[in-house]
C-alpha cells in the first residue's frame, strides 16, 4: 500500500481539526483527538494506531485489504441507474457521479479470501450515501441468486444512508426484493455474512444488513433504523452516549461479533472454513 487512498485523504480534509498541519500528511483522529501520521494510518487499514478509531475506507481499499491479490472480479456492472420518477435533479446527479467513475451504491463481484472463493458486495457511500435504488437492489439480488446457483457464500459490507428517495417507492421495494432473495439463498443452505460499517441505517439496515447468518459490526459504527435527528425531534431529548453504535447493538443482542478491522480478514476466513467453504 504505497498510494494514499482517496477516501482517507478526504477524511483527513473533512476531519482535520488543525488546518495548520501541512499537506494533510497528518490528521486529527476523531476518536482520540491525537495527531496521527497518515502513512501509519494507511498501514493500519485506516484504524487509528492510538485509539483504534475506524476511519471510513473506500470500496477499492476494502477490496485491497480483504481479497487475495488480483482475485476480485466485478459482476453486474452492466446494470446502471435510470430516473424512473423523473425526480428533480436525479438525472443530473447520476451523470455527475458516473462521470467521476463511481459505478453505483454497491460494487458486487467475487473474490478469493485466503484461497476461498466467495461473493462479495461492498457498498459505496460516495454514491448518494450508498443509498439503495433499483441498481443496488438488483445487484444485491443477483448476488444472492448467483450464490444459490453456484453454492458460494455471500459477504456484504454494508454502509448506507438508507433508501434512495429519488426512486421513491421503487427504492422502498428494493428492501423487500433483497430480503426475499436473501431468504431464497438461505434456503439453499449457503452462508451469508453481513458486515455493518459506519453508517448502516434506514432501508439497508431494515433489509439485507440484518439478515446475515452471522452479523459482524465494526467498532463504533452507527447502526440503526431511524436517523438520530429524526429520533431527537420525535422524543424531544438528546440521545444517550453510544446510542446506535455497534457496541450498543451488540449489548442489545443484534450483533454477533464487533470485530476490529485488523482482525476481520482472519475472522472471515475462519468462518468460511468452518462452513466448509474451503474445497
Amino acid at each position, binding site marked *: 500500500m504505497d498510494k494514499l487512498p482517496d477516501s482517507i485523504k478526504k477524511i483527513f480534509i473533512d476531519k482535520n481539526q488543525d488546518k495548520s498541519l501541512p499537506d494533510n500528511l497528518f490528521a486529527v483522529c476523531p476518536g482520540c483527538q491525537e495527531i496521527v501520521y497518515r502513512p501509519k494510518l494507511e498501514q493500519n487499514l485506516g484504524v487509528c494506531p492510538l485509539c483504534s478509531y475506524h476511519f471510513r475506507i473506500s470500496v477499492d481499499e476494502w477490496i485491497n485489504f480483504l481479497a487475495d491479490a488480483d482475485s*476480485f472480479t466485478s459482476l453486474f*456492472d*452492466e*446494470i*446502471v441507474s*435510470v430516473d*424512473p*420518477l423523473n*425526480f*428533480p435533479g436525479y438525472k443530473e446527479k*447520476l*451523470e455527475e457521479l*458516473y*462521470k467521476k*467513475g463511481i*459505478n453505483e451504491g454497491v460494487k458486487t463481484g467475487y473474490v478469493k479470501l485466503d484461497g476461498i472463493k466467495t461473493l462479495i458486495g461492498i457498498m459505496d457511500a460516495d454514491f448518494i450515501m450508498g443509498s439503495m435504488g*433499483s*441498481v443496488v*437492489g*438488483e445487484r444485491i439480488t443477483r448476488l444472492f441468486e448467483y450464490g444459490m446457483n453456484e453454492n458460494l457464500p455471500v459477504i456484504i459490507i454494508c454502509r448506507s444512508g438508507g*433508501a434512495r*428517495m429519488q*426512486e*421513491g*417507492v*421503487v*427504492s*422502498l421495494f*428494493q*428492501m*423487500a*426484493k433483497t*430480503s*426475499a*432473495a*436473501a*431468504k*431464497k439463498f438461505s434456503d439453499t443452505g449457503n452462508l451469508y455474512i453481513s458486515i455493518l460499517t459506519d453508517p448502516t*441505517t434506514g*432501508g439497508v*439496515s*431494515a*433489509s*439485507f*444488513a*440484518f*439478515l446475515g447468518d452471522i452479523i459482524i459490526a465494526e467498532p463504533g459504527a452507527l447502526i*440503526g*433504523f*431511524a*436517523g438520530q435527528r*429524526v*429520533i431527537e425531534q*420525535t*422524543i424531544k431529548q438528546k440521545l*444517550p452516549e453510544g*446510542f*446506535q453504535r455497534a457496541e450498543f*447493538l451488540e449489548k*442489545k443482542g443484534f450483533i454477533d461479533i464487533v470485530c476490529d478491522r485488523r482482525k476481520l480478514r482472519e475472522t472471515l476466513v475462519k468462518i468460511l472454513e468452518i462452513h466448509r467453504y474451503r474445497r
Partner: protein
Amino acid sequence: MKKEKILKQIDKLKSIAISEGIDLSSEINRLRGMLELESDEYKKEKEIEEVFSIVQNSRKIERPKPQDFIKSLIKDFIELKGDRRFANDDAIIGGIGYFDKYPVTAVGIQKGHTLNENITFNFGSPHPEGYRKALRLAFQAEKFSRPILFFVDTPGAYPGIDSEERGMAQAIAENLYYLSDLKTPIISIITGEGGSGGALALGVSDILIMMQNAILSVISPEGCASIIFKDSSKAAAAAVSLKLTSFDLLSLGIVDKVIDEGPGLDVDPQIGYRNLTEQISTSLAYFTSLNSKELIEHRYQKLRKIGFYKDTTGFVKKGLNKSKNFIYELFKF
C-alpha cells in the same frame, strides 16, 4: 390569474385587428406562447394542489382506520395479542375471523380518530414488538393454511430510543424475509398513509391493493422536502415528485389494484368497503387455488421484478469490471 389577463389581452387585440383592419398576428402569437407557458405552470400548480390534497386526505382523522376495516370486513373477529418476547403493541391489532366464508388472519395498524385513541395507538407508529406480533400471527396463519389480510395505515415505524434498542431495523427485515415465502396467501391493503419501511413490513404480499385516496411513500413529503429540497415548505411539490398516489404506483407496477372509494372513505366508507370486499373475494379465490409452490414463486417474481435500471449487457464489449466509463457513455443516451 395571469392566464385570464392574457386571454383578455388577446381578445382585445383581435377586436382591434378586425375593427382597425391591421395585422396583429405576430403580437397575438407571442401572447399565445405566453399562454401555453402559463398553462403548463398552471397545470403543475394544480397537480401539486391535487396530490397534496390526496396526502392530506389519506391522513384525515375521519377516514376509517385499519381497525374499522377489520370491524367491517371480518366477521367474528377474535383479537390475539402479544409477540411472545417483550410486549403487546397496541399500535398493531391482529387476530382471526372470517372474511366471507374464509377463515383468515387479519392484522392492521391502529390509528386513532381522537387524540386519546392516538395516544393509545401511538399515532399508528408500531414498535418492533408490533411487527413481531404480526409475524407470529402470520406463522400461525401458515400453520393453519389461513390467508392473511394486512391493513396498513401508518406514518412509519416509531423512531424512538426504545424502538432502536429493541431492533426496529432487524424486526422489519425479518418480516420482509419470512413473509417473502410464507406458504399461505397474503393480501395487503394500504388504507391510508403508507409510511415507508413501517408500511412495507406488512406490505409483502401476493397482491398489493391501495384504496384510491391512500398514499404509499419511501419518505413523508415533508421529510423529503427538508432533506432533498432543503426547504420544508416544499412538501407539496415533493409529494408530486415522490409518485406516492395510488394511480402513480399502479402505473409504476408496484400496486396491483386501486379501489374506487366513490365519494371518499371519509364521506361514506360503504362504497369503498364494497369495492374492496369484491376485490379481496376475487383475490382469495384465486390465491387459495394455487399450491404453495406456485404461490411462493408468484410472490417472489412479483417482488423480483420491481426496479428500473438499464441493462447494458448488449453493448458491453470490454471486460465487465472495466466498463465504468463505457457505462457512463451509455447513460447519456
